[in-house]
């Protein structure tokens, strides 16, 4: 049995005017475990706290109940008071007799009775309280960034800038990501490469940053501050230390039929390749699927022409194991597949293209060397139609329910660039809504209409029909005119919805980070913690969390970096002791608790258990108190009651219920 002291606060007249505090003191003094009860004007004052300390020392109290204002106000105060008197701070419970009682009730008798009941509930809870101690864990001062696009690069640069080591793992042979595929960027029309390349160079030159390109995260274990990650460095077949990046191998390679990933399959590349001219590192890889040497054993031309002797057909995948304190996910996006949107004839005509493909066509390093031409016959188009919201804002099963956010702006950009460079081309844009929230965004869109004469039609396209003469017949509607429109076009550009990179599912599972129904990674709080994952130590950067344009991505990348730096700056992590705890003897190992844990705090171990004389190996749940945030979802999922929450234990809550109902 505890030795409990009850302290009833008057809070001036805030409580005492409606609650008979003397009566409360008198009533609770009869409760089991209560050895001391007193009231005072202001319990939170220095004098009030001194009274508490004195009582703890003199009456050897083991638990405190303070009947006062909301615990949200002074729970911490009184916990510290208890600690000063040598009592475990978690042996304190607050009965909220101000906000929940005196302030809302007028009748003194009624309010006093309720205050007594609230005090009894708190006493019942303290009776079952146990001292709790925060845990400590160390922090590895190194961060991992998964994804080497603009989000990953910016995060890495910011973390490195603060003086911490940071590794970037990039799946493709070069960092740069989606942004490296873009031609110009809105709303200022800078050349994408001109602003991205310096960042890429900076990242590769920074001695705190280590790049793992052509590599993938294979396995993640551990938890916040102490992750262990296996990284698979795929065999490049080119020795990075020897290669000078001269490019002769790529020129000589006889296998040239592989569709270029970088150019979205609009042209081909060699089997040994760097994705694009400014690639970092500027070291090619051999695509073993396409390479004649690997397929037939004959060829080896690249090895012969390489003066540096960098070609190494024997190279194997390598697993590197590293430790990290924080992980930033920056896996980016891709455009959705259009196979379910046959009405736009994407698969039927080469002249129906996605906007990202148009970026490559417009780019001087692209498949058409920057000339706007039809891919079917190389002719210069006269009429171009842009269709918005292809797969975005679709609540049916074909598309995505969300707005992809960037399409309105890039379509305005495309329309404007085309009209600027080729004033002879008529550009029509079919839109549902034009969404331009952003600094100088609406002005940008209006310029396309007002200064460049782009024809914006409010309405959608129902069908694109390729004609025998190579033209595309577009059937749409002008809602403002209430007319159906049939027009011929030479090219149709689809503002295709974006979706998280396909790898994100696998990565989220490894990190036990949660993802939503659209595969976007979930943030810890939609408003207040937008760059943190609910899994402690995991941060989100860029489009993996939700659609974003470049400025937003860069801003979020910086924010994620700050959060990671904040974590890395700590030497030790103190953990909240009100965490879940599993009773090994009762645990079934059924995994249901882990299924509901938003933090991935629960893992399973096979352990030798001695259950009253029966010794056997059992699969049991283990809660990592560094990760557990104490929500209690697992405790209710656990059918055997093995899982309980310290500080809010089952029996404590039941005791409160008993005290209220009796």
């Amino acid at each position, binding site marked *: 049995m505890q030795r409990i002291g009850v302290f009833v606060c008057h809070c001036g007249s805030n409580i005492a005017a409606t609650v008979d505090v003397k009566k409360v003191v008198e009533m609770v003094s009869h409760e089991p475990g209560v050895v001391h009860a007193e009231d005072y004007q202001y319990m939170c004052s220095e004098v009030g706290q001194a009274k508490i300390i004195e009582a703890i020392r003199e009456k050897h109290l083991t638990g405190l109940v303070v009947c006062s204002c909301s615990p949200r106000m002074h729970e911490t105060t009184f916990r510290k008071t208890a600690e000063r008197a040598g009592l475990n701070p978690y042996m304190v419970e607050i009965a909220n007799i101000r906000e929940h009682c005196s302030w809302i009730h007028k009748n003194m008798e009624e309010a006093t009775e309720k205050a007594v009941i609230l005090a009894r509930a708190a006493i019942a809870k303290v009776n079952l309280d146990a001292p709790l101690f925060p845990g400590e864990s160390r922090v590895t001062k190194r961060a991992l960034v998964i994804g080497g696009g603009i989000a990953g690069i910016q995060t890495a640069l910011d973390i490195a800038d603060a003086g911490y080591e940071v590794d970037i793992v990039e799946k493709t042979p070069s960092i740069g990501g989606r942004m490296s595929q873009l031609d110009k960027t809105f709303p200022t029309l800078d050349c994408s490469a001109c602003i991205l390349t310096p960042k890429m160079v900076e990242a590769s030159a920074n001695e705190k940053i280590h790049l793992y390109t052509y590599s993938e995260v294979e396995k993640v274990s551990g938890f916040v501050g102490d992750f262990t990650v296996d990284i698979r460095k795929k065999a490049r077949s080119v020795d990075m230390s020897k290669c000078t990046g001269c490019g002769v191998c790529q020129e000589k390679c006889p296998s040239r039929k592989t569709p270029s990933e970088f150019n979205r399959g609009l042209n081909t590349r060699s089997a040994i390749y760097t994705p694009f001219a400014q690639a970092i590192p500027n070291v090619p890889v051999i695509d073993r699927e396409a390479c004649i040497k690997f397929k037939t054993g004959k060829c080896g031309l690249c090895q012969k022409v390489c003066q540096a002797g960098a070609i190494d057909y024997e190279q194997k995948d390598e697993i590197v194991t590293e430790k990290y304190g924080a992980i930033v996910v920056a896996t980016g996006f891709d455009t959705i597949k259009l196979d379910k949107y046959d009405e736009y004839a994407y698969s039927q005509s080469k002249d129906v293209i996605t906007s990202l493909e148009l970026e490559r066509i417009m780019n001087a390093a692209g498949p058409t060397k920057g000339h706007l031409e039809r891919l079917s016959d190389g002719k210069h188009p006269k009429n171009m139609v842009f269709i918005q919201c292809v797969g975005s804002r679709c609540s049916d099963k074909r598309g995505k329910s969300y707005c992809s956010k960037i399409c309105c702006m890039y379509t305005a950009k495309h329309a404007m660039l085309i009209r600027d460079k080729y004033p002879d081309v008529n550009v029509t844009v079919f839109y549902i809504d034009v969404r331009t929230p952003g600094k100088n965004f609406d002005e940008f869109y209006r310029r396309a209409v007002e200064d460049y004469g782009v024809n914006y039609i409010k309405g959608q396209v129902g069908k694109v029909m390729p004609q025998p003469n190579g033209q595309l017949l577009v059937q749409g509607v002008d809602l403002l005119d209430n007319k159906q429109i049939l027009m011929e076009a030479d090219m149709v550009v689809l503002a295709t919805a974006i979706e998280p990179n396909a790898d994100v599912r696998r990565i989220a599972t490894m990190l036990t980070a949660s993802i939503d129904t659209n595969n976007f990674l979930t943030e810890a709080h939609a408003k207040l913690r937008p760059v943190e994952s609910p899994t402690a130590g995991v941060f989100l950067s860029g489009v993996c969390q939700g659609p974003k344009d470049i400025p937003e991505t860069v801003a979020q990348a910086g924010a994620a970096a700050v959060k990671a730096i904040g974590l890395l700056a700590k030497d030790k992590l103190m953990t909240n002791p009100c965490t879940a705890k599993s009773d090994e003897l009762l645990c079934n190992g059924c995994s249901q608790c882990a299924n509901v844990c938003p933090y991935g705090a629960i893992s399973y171990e096979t352990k030798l258990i001695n259950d*009253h004389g*029966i010794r056997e190996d059992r699969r049991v749940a283990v809660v990592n108190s560094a990760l557990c945030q104490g929500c209690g979802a697992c405790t209710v999922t656990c059918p055997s009651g093995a899982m309980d929450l310290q500080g809010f234990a089952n029996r404590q809550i039941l005791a409160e219920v*008993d005290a209220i*109902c*009796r």
Partner: protein
Amino acid sequence: MFKIAKSKLPELLKAIAAQQELFLPVNNNGQVNFAAWFEGCNADIETLKTVKSPKDMFFPQSETLYTVKKEQHKLSVEPQALADQNFVAFGMKACDIQGIKVLDKVFLAEPVDTFYRARREHGTIVALACHEPEESCFCKVFGVDCAEPDADVVMWNANDTLYWKAVTDKGTALTEALSGVLENADAADEKAVETEQENIRAIVEKLPYTNLSLEGWNGNVTEEKFNSPVWEKLYKPCLACGTCTFVCPTCQCYDIKDYDTGHGIQRYRCWDSCMYSDFTMMAHGNNRTSQMQRFRQRFMHKLVYFPANNDGMYSCVGCGRCVEKCPSSLNIVKVIKAFEKEAANHE
């Protein structure tokens, strides 16, 4: 001897209920159990076996022992009043009555269980001979004659008539109080009862378990049976539920628990089952740890320990409820037969 047409059963019951509290087999949604009589209840004396044995008329599944009340700082203890109303247990079978005798050995021996004794003293047992014994019955093995139950009053159910014979003073007193509804029986009726008894005994001879042998269970066999390897094979299908114990007429183990009513404590006892993992889990914590041990306990108790302490009286009465009700079809007969086979293999 007396008699009454079976069609007049409702009147008989009403007449008894007018005198005393009456418990009898009542059909509730197809399941027959002993329950308090009420006007219009679905009395069923044709079903041979009630699901639960009638033991809870004397030893209820749960009963309050005393109550502690708390007001401010004061505690007061209120003892539980003992049963003080007479009641009739109507339609009990011979095996169940033998079950009560087993309970008597436990609860009426020193120290006497006053709750049980009060109920025994106030209860009048009106037995019913088993008109059509069933295949799961093996009361004869334990010396029970289901054609002639040992009770305050015995009834036979034949020829659409209930024949009524008072045996004890209690029985006679009840019979006298019912003179308004019972008719006097004549010599032909006496003859009919004899015929019914012969019929019953003839069927009993044909029952599949009637010749079950208890050889090898008497005498000083504790060590031998306890250490037998047979248990290890036998217990495997056991689910560790308490069905067998709760339908059994002789299982007498109980647990004592406190219930927090919010304004005090009610101490009550309730049936416990040796099949449960927390059986005899007391402060020391060293209860039987494996289901094999718990399983063994139940049968060792019935067939070895109990007779050893009670002049050879087995605490199984052959009612066959466990044969019918065990979810995994285990029962005491299979246990006895398994040991018989084991013994045969050894020879």
